[in-house]
């Protein structure tokens, strides 16, 4: 099956700085793909290269088999882009922004007008249809940006941090909308600073760091492979020293001998509990911290993900 997006050996320089370093990845039709990375890792540059907003020096990008440089018209017709920054036409009203966008993608005026109405109503923007974008609130602008990308019913929707600075309610609405859209077969390529967003929405995740892909797998597999469950055992009595078996397993004694901490690997918890039982030690409380994508991200990039508001 032809991949929805196929990037091979993409290399992009800004003067002498290598922003993207031989990046390769594929996204299957109908996939919900998350593209994560710290600020400046190359996420937006990759998107810019895919959509015709950036030149690149080497490699190839295909959208449903269409080369984004050689067959750029066919490739772009399949893509809807929600950019990170607002880039609306300052001379047009909200409705015109959508109808003109439809026109650029080949929709007749009637079709574009009907589709614009549908999207304006869906995104609760219909009462603001005659306003220029400058008179809309931040949340409305964000919704209009997504509506604009959807006008021509793209097969691939690329979203560059679509929920940055959006309030929680709208964020959840957008998540629902994206899930529905993906459910109807639209391939989604999403970059985000919200790990929770990637965990909840994306079936597969790619992590980019300093222009290179450092991890690429399903969200679950990444967490399973790279994350560890942290276990805290609170003891009823103070322990002077760790039993030899626990010490060898990498556990540590903390809080003046009242707490044992260790990283669970392949069912290690059962063995730890057996050792404690054998040594006549009782447990008052047990806490576990499940690994998240954030832990994986931190491990891979050495950076905590930064949320841009």
């Amino acid at each position, binding site marked *: 099956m032809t991949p929805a997006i196929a990037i091979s050996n993409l290399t992009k320089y800004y003067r002498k700085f290598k922003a993207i370093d031989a990046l390769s990845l594929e996204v299957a039709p109908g996939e919900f793909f998350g593209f994560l990375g710290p600020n400046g890792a190359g996420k937006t540059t990759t998107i810019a290269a895919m959509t015709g907003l950036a030149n690149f020096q080497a490699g190839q990008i295909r959208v449903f088999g269409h080369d984004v440089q050689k067959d750029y*018209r066919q490739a*772009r017709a399949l893509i809807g882009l929600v950019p990170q920054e607002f880039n609306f036409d300052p*001379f*047009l009203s909200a409705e015109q922004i959508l109808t003109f966008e439809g026109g650029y993608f080949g929709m007749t005026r009637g079709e574009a007008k009907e589709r614009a109405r549908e999207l304006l109503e869906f995104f609760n923007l219909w009462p603001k249809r005659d306003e220029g974008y400058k008179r809309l609130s931040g949340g409305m602008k964000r919704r209009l940006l997504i509506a604009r990308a959807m006008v021509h019913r793209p097969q691939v929707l690329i979203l560059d941090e679509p929920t940055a600075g959006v309030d929680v309610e709208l964020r959840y609405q957008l998540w629902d909308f994206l899930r529905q859209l993906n459910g109807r077969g639209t391939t989604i390529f999403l970059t985000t600073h919200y790990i929770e967003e990637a965990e909840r929405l994306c079936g597969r995740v790619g992590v980019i760091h300093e222009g290179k892909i450092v991890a690429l797998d399903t969200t679950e597999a990444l967490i399973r492979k790279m994350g560890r469950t942290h276990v805290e055992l609170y003891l009823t009595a103070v322990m002077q020293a760790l039993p030899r078996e626990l010490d060898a397993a990498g556990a540590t004694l903390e809080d003046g001998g009242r707490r044992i901490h260790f990283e669970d690997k392949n069912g290690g918890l059962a063995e730890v509990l057996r050792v404690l039982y054998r040594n006549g030690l009782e447990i008052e409380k047990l806490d576990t911290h499940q690994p998240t994508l954030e832990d994986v991200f931190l491990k891979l990039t050495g950076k905590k993900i930064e949320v841009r508001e």
Partner: protein
Amino acid sequence: MRYRIGFQTLVRREIVRFLSVFSQTLFPPLVSSFLFIFIFGYSLGAQIDRVGGVPYLEFLIPGLVMMTVIESSYTNTSSSLFISRWANNIEELLVTPLSYVEMVLAILIGGLVRSFVIAAGVYGVSLFFVRFPVEHWLLVFYFYLFVSLTFSSVGMIVALFAEEFEHLSIMTTFIITPLIYFGGVFNSVDMLPGFLRQWIPYNPIFYMINGMRYGMLGTSDVPPAQAMVVVFLLFLSLFTTTVLLFKAGFKLRK
């Protein structure tokens, strides 16, 4: 079909743009042309003998028409494209399936339409002061078309190189306006001092104004065929440059 609609939409957007700010885009050139016709042509012109075999007021009108074509074509495309770069909405266009030639042509047509509206307005205003039969309508159309496309291309090229709004007006103040004034809007080449006269053939706008004057009045300082060739070659080179800059993504793509 689909691509044709995209192209037509961009043309419409360009027209909607200048009409949405018509008080800035349409009225000022009409007012200044009225003042030129009234002060220079009607009042002062009465004191001047015939120029090039026609009354001064008649001599003035083709030059004014060409001046407005040049200025409005340049202003329209330079401001449209520069604002799109400045507001970043050029990205909205660059991700569409329009070809680069279509993008350039549609923006040029915006300049063509605006300059047509203003030039027709200037000609309409002139009818209140003087009426004369137009000698060669086809030549008038030829010079309007290619001069407008030429300066619309200039506007786009300048808008691509410009980093600030001021850069657009620097081109007008220091290059286009002097070339227009020395190109024979208000005078025949015979009326200039000798040392200036030898440089006039190097001024491309001289051919444009005289071409339009020949089309309207049948009188010119240069053979009309020569003016036609100069104007067409200029158009061709500047249009090609604009398309190549767009294709390369000069100051458009990262």
